[in-house]
């Protein structure tokens, strides 16, 4: 039975209460990641300092998700926009939010160089192993054998290479004295929050943070609720969930 309640959904202060339901598909991992991010911003009281940038791809649907200053950029270009912001105003806490395509394909040169220069921002790559917005094509992280619109018979690694491991790559080039690099998963949002906390604290300390979040895409995966979580488990076996680089003094 439907009732009318005065009390609404429990939203973080850093979530935009004006927009109602998000623009994401049912079961989309972006919702889980972003609400966790918003809760972390609240808990660290970074609401006035945070500047959020989103990419093209499904992440762009978050252009009014957050209740913090936001800029929606081009595919792969969120990283340079946000380090442009924090270079100009180092007091801000910059967050560049993108998918695996934006982070590891079209924007990979920005990711690599931001990591090497220890740019002062948090880069979040939501890894759902495909290009969601454009209709489910192969991405750099598509799993071996995974069917996508451009690998309809399954990803053949002999032809397309092996899936890119973003966190490992960034960990290998990031300055251990200035960086926090981790891979987390939407399967455990409490842990994800703890990861975001370290990442944002590190940015607030002037460092560079990179968090790859294993995420889900039930629509393009064509999975039901049970299969979605199962698929994520397989991903976690392939992409190791852990903190790769953690500067000293960061808790």
């Amino acid at each position, binding site marked *: 039975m439907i009732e009318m309640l005065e009390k609404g959904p429990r939203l973080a202060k850093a979530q935009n209460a004006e927009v109602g339901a998000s623009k994401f598909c049912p079961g989309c991992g972006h919702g889980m990641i972003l609400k966790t991010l918003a809760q972390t911003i609240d808990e660290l009281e970074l609401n006035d300092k945070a500047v959020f940038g989103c990419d093209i791809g499904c992440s762009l649907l978050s252009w009014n998700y957050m209740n913090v200053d*936001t800029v929606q950029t081009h595919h792969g270009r969120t990283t340079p*926009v946000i380090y442009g912001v924090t270079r100009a105003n180092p007091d801000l806490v910059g967050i560049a939010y993108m998918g695996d395509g934006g982070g590891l394909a079209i924007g990979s040169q920005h990711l690599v160089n931001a990591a090497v220069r220890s740019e002062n921002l948090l880069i979040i790559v939501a890894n759902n192993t495909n290009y969601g917005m454009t209709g489910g094509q192969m991405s750099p992280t598509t799993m071996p054998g995974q069917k996508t619109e451009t690998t309809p018979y399954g990803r053949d690694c002999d032809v397309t290479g092996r899936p890119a491991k973003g966190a490992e790559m960034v960990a290998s080039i990031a300055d251990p004295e200035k960086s926090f690099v981790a891979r987390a998963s939407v399967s455990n949002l409490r842990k994800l929050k703890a990861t975001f906390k370290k990442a944002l604290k590190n940015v607030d300390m002037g460092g560079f943070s990179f968090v790859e979040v294993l995420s889900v895409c039930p629509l393009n995966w064509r999975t039901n609720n049970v299969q979605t979580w199962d698929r994520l488990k397989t991903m976690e076996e392939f992409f190791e969930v852990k903190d790769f680089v953690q500067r000293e003094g960061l808790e």
Partner: protein
Amino acid sequence: MVKKLITQDTRMFLTGNEVIAYAANAAEAEFMYGYPITPQNEIMHTWCKLLPKTEAGFLQTEDEISAGFSTIGGILAGKRAFTATAGPGNVIMQDAQSMAEMMRIPFVCAVMQRGGPSTATVIYAQQETRLTCFGGNGEGFRIVYSTAGHQDLYDYMIKAFNTAWKYRFPTFMLADGYQGKMREPVTLYDPASRGIKMVPVEATLGGANGSRPVNHVRNTFNLEEELMEVLDKYQEEFDRISPEIEEYLEYKADDAEVLIIAHGIVARSAMTAVDELRAKGIKAGLFRPITLRPLAVKPLRAAVARAKQVLFTESANGQLAQMVLEKIYGLQTPYSTLFKMGVGVTGDDIVQKVESMVKEPATV
């Protein structure tokens, strides 16, 4: 707040790239984002060398894509930021420039044209005219000043910042490799001494601390009509402000029988040619559009209508000519062309061409 280097009129003997760095400082620019590409490198070199005195900021990015986008970031964070590029760098920076168009970001960029297409030469051309005016996936909501030497570089670089921040359309200073690399005397000045006040800048992202509602800056639209509504407004605004922005220069064009139409440094060669032709008894004159976007259409049409013949000359294959021909549609004045793709046009070239036009008038 940056420290200004030029507090009183100072005559210096500089390369154009150096002039641009000094001009940006005079305009109180606080941050430059850039990526090396010839022939604009010395803008960055000079800017960096001056940093201890100016206390401004600089970031060398990983490519022109990031130079463009990080410039946008800097501007949104409330800094008077700028960038510079050339050639293939200008091509890939269109990504950021079209975002600046859509988001109405006061993006200032100096373009030092080189030969194209592709890598071509690192020397000189006017082949980025169309790209700079209309690049990106849109309508060219941009303001473009075409300069013809070092005093122009100084004057218009300062002006570009104010135009950009006043009207919030990306603003370009279109110069070239010759202007960047050549040395000639120039008078640097404090803009305030010329009555120029810099338009104040403000932050779109960050720093509000609850003093205003949060900003959600976007360039994505869901519906066709939603987009058109925005673009119609932009176009209406662009048309409305155009008369305030349009600039041109006429040189002995009043009674000119042969009107030369040229922009940038080629217009300077045309001035040399006009003097030589007049000395030989040929009534030549020059119309030089200074703003290429928007074009000063009314005076342009009037000058063309007065002349018996028109000569378009460019270090490109008619990129300006195309833009002008569209605007002078309906006029009957015949024209001829002298196009040298990616190569400098000398006074002699123009003199010879005009002499041949006098002997054998254009029929097109």
